[in-house]
């Protein structure tokens, strides 16, 4: 046994695989599992000690309280092909679709609820405006009609250009056939779309807020194009029982069961390139791992092209564009994680008792304009008076807190860098702003007094970047959602099809089309491209 004592390092891991994937977030694991199922020898390398990336559930307040530190809402369940292809549920993932999905409570004591039942949702909207309720129903029904087409066209295919899309929509005469789809959507804001179709400012505010929560900022031109899809799946929000991290376990399990491996604490320092081909990676500890067929990066464009690749392997132009042109979200998320001894009881429950059963409650803006005013503040590096949304997963997941207790999450839109002190100032101001968020909540849920909380932990935009450096500048979308950063333009035109200028190097993370969130889209689409290049029979293609 002296061998173990002699060297500082124990036996090294295997040093060659067919495919090496950088990053064990949901995209890395998903792609790895498909490739492993296709018979390839796959290693997924993860910098952190835990797989999952944004699928991160930790007990960051107190033992027994499970907090989803990043992804909390799974909105593409049963829409994303990998959920079925990789038998996610058979691997133990349990999803719940809460009956009361989300709500907005307003300053005047009223409340609007989105239910899993569209009739109830429309009834709730009708209390504000009956016409809006009917409009919403038509929008929802129309979107439901084309949701499969839209998913198949816009999410789970390598992307087309906006131009191609526009041409096709026009050839098919879609805007003449649809009340809500029009070619103009690609230049309009969600605000404008809402103004065109809805009347009540609170209804509009709820929908605008919904868009923003999904990453589609309501005042950004062109994002109206995404709104019909958001409306169509507004009630498809699922909660992963036992925390979002369990999905990571399921994907990892699928990978491992099919012969792949996930290696945690394996920080990639560089990608080895030989004669223009990616041939492996070198870890921060010096370990070299070669990749016989391909190297895939699921982390940020900056890490991949500036940190991992030797300057000689990338054109100066591309390096320049990666430095200056990659677009990140101009706002991030500030979170307060709560260990609680009670459920919130909203004052607005006297208006609509269902708010107390809503999974997520927005401390509602009275109008989109109020929300837009906060965007202006945030973009200037300022902190708005908080109006977070409050998710209480324990309402629907009894395993996420000890019996008799509850786990809570307040999420507030916030800047990454503060005008005063930059991002580093978050370490000082975070706890203070966290208290402000709790006070804002208390105004709507008076029973959330200080003695309701056993412990609180804030998680700032700076923390996002520190925990998951692929989320550059706290960019939880890994790239802005905007017209010039969508589809084949995302993250840069030359990287928009999952291939890169380096042969055998692919991009398959949320930097790619469609975008962040637990969509599985980047991995699924990169898979199609890799299958073509590597000659893999697409067994997953079910037509």
């Amino acid at each position: 046994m002296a061998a173990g004592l002699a060297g500082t390092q124990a036996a090294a891991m295997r040093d060659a695989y067919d495919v090496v994937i950088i990053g064990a977030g949901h995209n890395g694991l998903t792609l790895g599992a498909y490739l492993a199922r296709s018979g390839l020898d796959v290693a997924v390398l993860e910098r952190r000690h835990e797989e999952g990336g944004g699928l991160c559930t930790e007990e960051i307040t107190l033992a027994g309280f499970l907090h989803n530190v990043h992804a909390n809402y799974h909105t593409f369940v049963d829409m994303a092909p990998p959920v079925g292809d990789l038998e996610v549920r058979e691997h133990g993932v349990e999803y719940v679709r809460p009956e009361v999905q989300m709500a907005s409570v307003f300053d005047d004591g009223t409340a609007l609820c989105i239910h899993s039942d569209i009739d109830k949702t429309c009834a709730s909207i009708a209390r504000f405006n009956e016409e809006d309720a009917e409009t919403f129903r038509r929008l929802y029904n129309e979107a439901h009609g084309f949701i499969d087409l839209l998913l198949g066209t816009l999410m789970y295919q390598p992307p087309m250009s906006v131009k191609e899309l526009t041409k096709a929509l026009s050839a098919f005469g879609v805007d003449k056939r649809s009340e809500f789809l029009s070619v103009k959507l690609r230049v309009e804001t969600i605000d404008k779309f809402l103004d065109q179709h809805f009347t009540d400012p609170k209804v509009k505010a709820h929908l605008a807020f919904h868009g923003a929560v999904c990453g589609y900022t309501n005042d950004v031109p062109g994002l109206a194009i995404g709104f019909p899809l958001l409306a169509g799946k507004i009630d498809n929000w699922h909660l992963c029982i036992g925390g979002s991290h369990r999905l990571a376990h399921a994907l990892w399990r699928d990978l491992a069961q099919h012969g792949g491996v996930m290696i945690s604490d394996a920080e990639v320092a560089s990608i080895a390139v030989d004669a223009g081909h990616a041939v492996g990676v070198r870890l921060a500890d010096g370990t070299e791992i070669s990749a016989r067929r391909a190297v895939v990066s699921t982390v940020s464009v900056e890490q991949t092209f500036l940190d991992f690749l030797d300057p000689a392997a990338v054109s100066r132009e591309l390096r320049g564009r990666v430095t200056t042109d990659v677009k990140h979200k101009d706002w991030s998320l500030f979170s307060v994680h709560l260990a609680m001894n009670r459920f919130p009881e909203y004052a607005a429950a006297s208006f609509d008792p269902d708010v107390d059963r809503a999974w997520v409650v927005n401390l509602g803006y009275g109008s989109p304009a109020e929300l837009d005013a906060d965007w202006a503040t945030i973009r200037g590096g300022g902190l708005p008076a908080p109006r977070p949304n409050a998710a209480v997963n324990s309402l629907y997941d009894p395993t996420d807190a000890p019996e008799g207790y509850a786990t809570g999450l307040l999420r507030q839109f916030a800047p990454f860098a503060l005008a005063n002190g930059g991002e580093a100032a978050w370490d000082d101001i975070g706890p203070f702003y966290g208290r402000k968020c709790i006070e804002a909540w208390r105004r709507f849920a008076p029973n959330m007094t200080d003695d309701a909380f056993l412990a609180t932990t804030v998680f700032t935009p700076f923390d996002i970047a520190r925990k998951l450096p692929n989320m550059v500048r706290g960019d939880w979308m890994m790239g802005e959602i905007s017209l010039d950063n969508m589809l084949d333009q995302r993250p840069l035109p030359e990287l928009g099809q999952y291939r890169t200028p380096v042969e055998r190097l692919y991009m398959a993370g949320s930097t790619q089309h469609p975008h962040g969130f637990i969509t599985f889209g980047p991995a699924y689409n990169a898979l199609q491209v890799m299958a073509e290049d590597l000659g893999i029979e697409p067994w997953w293609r079910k037509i």
Partner: protein
Amino acid sequence: MPAIYTTEWYEAVREAINASVAGIKGVPEGAWTCRVEIIGDSASPYVQGGAERHFLVRIESGLCSWYREVDPGDEAMVLDYRFRGPAAVFDAIAAGIDDPIDAALRGAVKVRGDMRFLMRQADLVKTLLDAYATAVDTTWPRGRPPYEGSTGGSPAGDTGGNGGGSRSGGDTGGNGSGSRSGGDIGGNGGGSRSGGDTGGGNA
């Protein structure tokens, strides 16, 4: 004037499609196999409720080279596209009173396959669909859509008023092609049997 879903009708549709495509420039090379799945919905008198009729259609360089009916359980053929929807919707499209793109947009006909290609070839696709929907002057021996109470896959039972019509259509629609239809492109499955039965009765 061929009757719906008869061999003559399919031949007419094929000719119409091929004629219309001939005028298009830049038709993509290559071959695509499409499967059309018509679900009997009790509204359409042409495919019985609970039954399904599945057809394979082969498109080569924009032209329909062959088509045939297959057993609904027969998935031997590797597909490029699958179109699936209720018979009443397909009937209505063939009658020119429903629009295939509308039907797809409202989810009445489900489309699976490479959407990107369909979008990129929008002009061709539109031409093919228009030809299918409007280029053939179809007869409707068992009644003509729209069927009462049916907007594409709506519940059965509402067809009562139409039921007599459809039966009478059967009685009078003796164009003799029913049996051939059954023989050529049917021959198996509930749908084709229905075609065979009525055809035989009419012969």
